[in-house]
């Protein structure tokens, strides 16, 4: 049945093993991190990464791979080597001081219902 072809698809992609030449080519392509925003007004969430040769391809692949189940309406891609991350070794220094500073939270302000999803 034509309808069943939609179900069969997911089995095939598991069997892809690139040849040596292909593997070499793949490692030449930079790695990109993909962020998808599900609805207008919300934030882009990190959903995975992919290899692509350039920004346009990265966007198209991000769309093909990470939004095929209607996960989003907007895609961002950033080259992984452009991301600067905090050092896990600094975790104590960076984040522990916040533990006992409850006066920084706006807990005594009640949000109106219309914006209460924040």
């Amino acid at each position, binding site marked *: *049945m*034509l*309808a*069943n*072809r*939609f179900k069969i*698809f997911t089995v*095939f*992609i*598991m*069997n*892809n093993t*690139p040849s040596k030449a*292909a593997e070499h*080519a*793949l490692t030449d392509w930079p790695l990109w991190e993909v962020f998808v925003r599900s609805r207008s007004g919300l934030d882009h969430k990190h959903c995975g990464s*992919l*290899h*692509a*040769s350039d920004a*346009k*391809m990265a966007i*198209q*692949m991000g769309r*093909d*791979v990470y939004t*095929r189940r209607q996960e989003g309406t907007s895609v961002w891609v950033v080259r992984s080597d452009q991301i600067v991350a905090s050092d896990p070794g600094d975790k104590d220094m960076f984040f522990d001081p916040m533990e006992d500073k409850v006066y920084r939270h706006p807990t005594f302000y009640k949000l109106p219902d219309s914006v209460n999803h924040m």
Partner: protein
Amino acid sequence: MQTSISIDCTPSVKYLLRIGDTCLIHAQRISEWSGHAPILEEDIALSNMALDLIGQTRAVLTLAGQLEGKGHDEDQLAYLRSEQDYFNLTMVELPRGDFAFTVVRNVMVATLLKLLWERLCDSEHAELAAIAGKAIKEARYHQQHAADWLIRLGDSTAEARQRAERALQDLWLYVPEFFEADHNAASGASNLGPDWSEVKVKWHAEMHTILQASTLSEPEDRTFRSTGKYGVHSEHMGYLLAEMQYLQRAYPGGQW
């Protein structure tokens, strides 16, 4: 084994089958890449493209079956006709080829389908216009995706260029069939949509732009003419149908 159905091929039905069969057979060839594409993301992209085309096929074949009025549904039409009752373009039944061949074929067929769907959005037949309204979005993406790949293959390494040029030369032979006027079918179907010859100028203009960006040269026209859209297929169609139809014929009405 299930025997073939025979169809009542009025001009309107043939008009729809040309579109539906082209989508179906093209999807069949593209899906041969599932699990074998050079890059994982492209494997998913190609599979998505094939499924989009299957979706278009389902809508169009269902409508064709309704217009035919013999109670044939999309599955019967897809899987139980004989070779001479399929009206897809010869180009889409050609073997999968290498990646360059697939990219060039995708550009050509996606451009054609996009231009047809654009016109069919204004069809007097409301349901066909609705199908077109959905399909045009998919077709635009298919064309953009394929064109971007062609530019990358054409304007790059010697091997990529050579393969792309070879594919272009091979496939150009099957282009004239797109726009040949078929005096039997066109007249009765004018309320459904345009004759395909009406998109010839735009198709060539868009192909020209894409080829220029890929730094590939447009091949010369030759005298060869393919005839798939008349139901007279190349030697590849028989093998394709044998594989595609096997399950439905061996297990009629099977569901899983």
